[in-house]
């Protein structure tokens, strides 16, 4: 298995108490990767339950520029409504493999919670989801979905009542119950081995994209673009392209109300290095090292840190990270609906918005792939409210 670090970033900064649980998880993952029957079950679930491979759709109207072709990797069509289902199935199978009967998870937008809940229903695991109280409000349909799927949803009131506080609570639960419970972390962040496990269980996003674009266009794209909160859909898309040096890797962070304000979630663009939730990475913090609250219109990107491999990719200059504001994301949300008949998740709308910007400015032919990481059904009420407010 790879080491705990990506260059200078990563590690496992957790209480000593959790080290045996992380070691056990790493060992189970290493063994599973070598076990043909594990992979067979994983890929069978992906195909027959989740609906992989997902299509790669050539957009007809999205690009403003005839020189630019934009494809969408349709993770929005995956069962559960987002890419999250991929890695959740993998980790749920690992939970069974470790002989544990209970799963703990945190969720921001609720997408990871829903994905975890459905995998637990399928594999008969007890499921306990921590969700920031503020996020529960913003994402009520997902709270109902999780409960319908048999999960226990625990609203977290401490701190800012968002994703980071849900992670804190989940870590506390795990500290007390690691012997019978697996912490099914939802993004490519957190302590080693989570960033590696989550990447490997999302790697098919990029692998499928590569095969599909070669078939359709006979060449690799000029850039792949994905939104970055914790960074799981982005790392899943990037993983198979990292060695393809001519393919630009572009991560799009939430600029919220603007990078010049304090209300954003752009840990890579505006943050500095430090430790949050067990990993050394880019985080949002004040001068003393207290973690600052992030902000984004999209709950799934509202996180003040990022996966350590993204910090490394930025550090070595292999990937570029940019930021898109709430307003730009909301415009892209509507524009994709109007122009292509696809309602994207607010998270994915950030990536769409950036692709549109690149297209506007391009002077040469370009082939872009946007990872459309999730669908926007969960955001309809919220966006409706926002747009009505704007109109009045």
């Amino acid at each position, binding site marked *: 298995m790879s080491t705990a670090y990506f260059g200078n970033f990563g*590690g496992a*900064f957790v*209480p*000593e108490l959790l080290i045996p649980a992380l070691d056990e998880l790493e060992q189970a993952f290493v063994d599973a990767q070598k076990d043909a029957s594990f992979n067979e079950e994983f890929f069978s679930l992906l195909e027959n339950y989740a609906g992989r491979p997902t299509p790669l759709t050539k957009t007809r109207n999205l690009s403003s520029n005839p020189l630019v072709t934009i494809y969408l990797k349709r993770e929005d069509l995956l069962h559960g409504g987002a890419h999250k289902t991929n890695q959740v199935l993998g980790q749920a199978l690992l939970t069974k493999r470790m002989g544990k009967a209970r799963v703990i998870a945190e969720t921001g937008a609720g997408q990871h919670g829903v994905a975890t809940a459905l995998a637990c229903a399928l594999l008969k695991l007890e499921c306990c989801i921590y969700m920031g109280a503020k996020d529960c409000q913003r994402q009520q349909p997902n709270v109902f979905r999780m409960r319908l799927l048999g999960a226990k949803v625990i609203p977290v009131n*401490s701190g800012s009542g968002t994703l*980071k506080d849900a992670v804190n609570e989940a870590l506390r639960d795990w500290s007390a119950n690691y*012997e019978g419970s697996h912490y099914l972390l939802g993004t490519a962040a957190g302590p080693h081995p989570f960033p590696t496990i989550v990447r490997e269980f999302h790697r098919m996003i990029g692998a499928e994209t590569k095969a599909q674009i070669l078939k359709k266009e006979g060449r690799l794209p000029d850039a792949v673009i994905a939104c970055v909160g914790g960074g799981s859909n982005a790392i899943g898309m990037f993983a198979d392209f990292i060695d393809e040096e001519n393919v630009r890797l572009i991560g799009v962070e939430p600029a919220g109300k603007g990078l010049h304000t304090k209300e954003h979630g752009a840990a890579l663009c505006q943050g500095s290095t430090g430790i949050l939730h067990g990993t050394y990475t880019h985080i949002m*913090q004040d001068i*003393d090292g207290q973690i600052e609250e992030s902000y984004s219109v999209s709950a799934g990107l509202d996180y003040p840190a990022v996966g350590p491999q993204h910090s490394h990719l930025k550090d070595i200059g292999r990937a570029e990270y940019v930021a898109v504001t709430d307003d730009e994301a909301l415009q892209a949300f509507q524009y994709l609906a109007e122009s292509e008949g696809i309602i994207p998740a607010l998270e994915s709308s950030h990536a769409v918005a950036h692709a549109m910007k690149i297209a506007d400015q391009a002077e040469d032919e370009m082939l872009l792939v946007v990872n459309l990481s999730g669908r926007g059904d969960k955001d309809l009420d919220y966006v409706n409210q926002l747009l009505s407010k704007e109109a009045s």
Partner: protein
Amino acid sequence: MTRYRTMFANLDRKQQGAFVPYVTLGDPTPEASLDIIETLINAGADGLELGFPYSDPIADGPIIQASSIRALDAGVRPKECFDIIHKIRNRYPDIPIGILLYSNLVLAKGLDPFYDQAASSGVDSVLIADVPVKESQPFCEAAIKHSIAPIFIVPPNITEANLQRISKQSEGYTYLLSRAGVTGTESVAQMPAAELIKKLSHYKTAPPLLGFGISRPEHISSAINAGAKGVISGSAVVKKIEENIESLDDIKAALNDFTSIMKAATYYQRQTRIKVHAEEVI
């Protein structure tokens, strides 16, 4: 670091275990916090474990998290924490002072500057709740350079290899966990196998203080009977602050009583009488 050695030697001679209370620095305000810490010392605390308030205390339960929030709301940052420690050190030159905090507060200042300031403020030991032994090397090097004891946590589930590694590096004392989970009195202390304590002594690990869920005198007698050299009591102490938050006098009175009772439970020869005494208290 020598203050711990002196403390353990003196306590051994007096046939007592150590009672080390924890409070969060600056809770509820820097001025009150100084007063609270002096109360603890005057009521019999043998050493101090002082927490730096942090926004995301993942190893702490609700009681200590709430105390962190109170202190942060009062504007307490590492600078104010070091100021309080400095004042305590000037008034009490011999008491061992340990600080407990999270890694990002150390990184934000920079390892060397942080340990340098800790040393000049009179800190004897530093425990970083989210730095396990496998990530500890740079922190330990900076600590040793400034003659500060790096404190390690030994949980009940520790592997033999990690225990050996901790033993080689440990100074001051060893923070022995009574149970899994986070700090708090909701789950009471459980006594770790006396075997683990024997192993610690076999590997010549720094003297073990038992923590997590220590809230009653009988927890102390059990800890000492199991071979611990004393206890750290955090949430039970902080709870007295929370329960009496309206009045500093009430906080001090409650902490004075609690500390005296807990300290009395550390006397070796009184172990048989503790049970009776404890029932009176509760």
